């Protein structure tokens, strides 16, 4: 639960989880993503690596969840609308203790619980099956409507909050904007969306495929509070989530500026790594780089 990981390290002011700085956990998640995808020969490394700090901030600091009780009614809900980043979610859930990390080696294989796009009935901690892009924010709106009625903030209770992670390319789906409109209409201040703004999609740069900018202006004009944060800076992300919690009467979107394939120089910013697994040699190089970067 959140209580266990709330306090920042007294010496550095940095967020930690069980004494470990969150960036260290993030790097371990990155290693697991790369290994999982390479081993499975399937998956989406680019958009998984860009979401690592977002997921680390959420699962190791922000979300009130309990791996021992994944169905705890008063938990916060996280929806991975960009279901393609499943390997990042699985690595994060495994690190957080929802299931043993050994399971990651079954990713994408026949009979595995770990589908390439997440299945809520197969994995503890996955709140809703996703993979068809554009649908998660609507689901989040429904959750937030019910959560506001059942578990409102106040009387010493934090209230159940709903978090939805979208891709920037995903914002090309019309349904996203139907949901953006509805969340503001219903004044869902218990809902926080996060856009993993890595600026690259399968066919190339988002700006060339179908420009979504100005993203902040779009969300703002629909009635949302907007926080733009550097998406690989865990402290900045946590500050953004903290601020979102305090904004009343409207939902908040965190627009997280990220780098596709973050952490591996030959993957960074390259659409070629959207859905391509690294081979053995590439994995070796990638892991070395990820490990080196944290030690520095």
């Amino acid at each position: 639960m959140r209580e266990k990981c709330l306090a920042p390290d007294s010496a550095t002011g940095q967020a930690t989880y069980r004494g470990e700085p969150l960036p260290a956990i993030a790097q371990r998640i990155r290693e697991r993503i790369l290994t999982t995808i390479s081993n499975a020969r399937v998956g989406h490394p680019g958009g998984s690596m860009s979401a690592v700090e977002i997921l680390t901030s959420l699962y190791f600091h922000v979300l009130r969840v309990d791996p021992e009780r994944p169905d705890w009614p008063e938990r916060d809900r996280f929806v991975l609308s960009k279901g393609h980043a499943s390997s990042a979610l699985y690595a994060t859930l495994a690190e957080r203790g929802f299931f043993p990390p050994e399971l990651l080696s079954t990713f994408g294989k026949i009979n595995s619980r770990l589908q390439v796009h997440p299945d809520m009935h197969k994995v503890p901690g996955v709140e809703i099956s996703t993979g068809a892009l554009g649908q998660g924010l609507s689901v989040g709106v429904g959750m937030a409507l019910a959560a506001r009625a059942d578990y409102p903030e106040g009387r010493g209770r934090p209230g159940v909050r709903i978090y939805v992670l979208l891709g920037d390319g995903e914002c090309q789906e019309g349904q996203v904007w139907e949901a953006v409109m509805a969340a503001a209409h219903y004044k869902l201040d218990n809902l926080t969306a996060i856009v993993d703004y890595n600026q690259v999609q399968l066919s190339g740069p988002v700006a060339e495929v179908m420009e979504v900018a100005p993203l902040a202006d779009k969300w703002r004009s629909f009635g949302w509070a907007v926080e733009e944060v550097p998406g690989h800076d865990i402290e900045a992300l946590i500050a953004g989530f903290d601020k979102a919690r305090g904004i009343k009467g409207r939902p908040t979107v965190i627009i997280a500026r990220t780098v596709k394939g973050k952490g591996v120089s030959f993957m960074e910013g390259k659409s070629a790594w959207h859905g391509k697994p690294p081979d053995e040699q590439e994995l070796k190089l990638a892991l070395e780089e990820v490990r080196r970067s944290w030690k520095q």
Partner: protein
Amino acid sequence: MEAVRDAFGKALVEIGRHDKRIVVLDADLASSTKVTYFAAEFPDRYFQVGIAEQNMTGIAAGLALMGRIPFTSTFGVFASRRACDQVAMSIAHPRLPVKLVGAYSGILSGNNGATHQAVEDVAIMRAIPNMVVVDPADAVEMSQVVKAIVEYDGPVYLRMSRDAWPDVVPPDYTFKLGKSVLLRPGDTVALVCSGMMASLCLEAASRLERQGISAMVLHMPTIKPLDIDSLVEAAEQTGCVVTAENHNVIGGLGSAVAEVLSEFCPVPVKKVGLQDTYGECGSNEELLEKYGLSAAHIVKAALEVLERKKK
């Protein structure tokens, strides 16, 4: 004789009084689907989502995940076509207990023409794994269907006629999900139907009786899962089958029946329904006549399968 949609609206209020899990989402069609009754009595459990069926379907999924039993209110064309991927991926695949109401079923859409005529909704919904498809005949049956689908813990597509149709089910009737209803015994030909076509089949059976032909009327309000045992029994008993549906003959009840019979009891089958075409404007009577769905067409189809049976 009450309009099927009125019976739906009232039944929803009735069950909503006892079951707080019931919520209603509406894509700006409440006055057509009659969820207005629910909205008036339970404003806190009624969510207007505007003209956005895809979003409505996703919001329903989110509410279901939080313990609600959502009913979504729109026309059949929008529930099935407009929000098809959301129905499949956000509702059916995760097996969420959302009840999708598709109003103005078939070509009888209150003279709104082809854009509002649901001629392929059953085909779409039936092909989606985990989805249950129900097409009640009259107001009495509809009232019971609402209760039954609330009790069923999974996704349901509820097809709903716009207008009033003669009551066909007996007064002591109990609807059971997945079970057919023998509306009229007979042993020469079986008329298999769903929805408002039941009353036309009864009329056709009366006409056939005057010609000395004993026609059974087997109503299948649950199109999926189909009551295979009763259907096969009816085919064995009569030796030929006419299906009657207010829908395209591709993918709907007729297809479902033919799929079962070709496997378990291959007898001559004739499908009454839209012959792979869209509709147009017109009164109910005009449309049924022009598109081959009237009692006279059912009679003609029965005589045809009887001929084929003799060969």
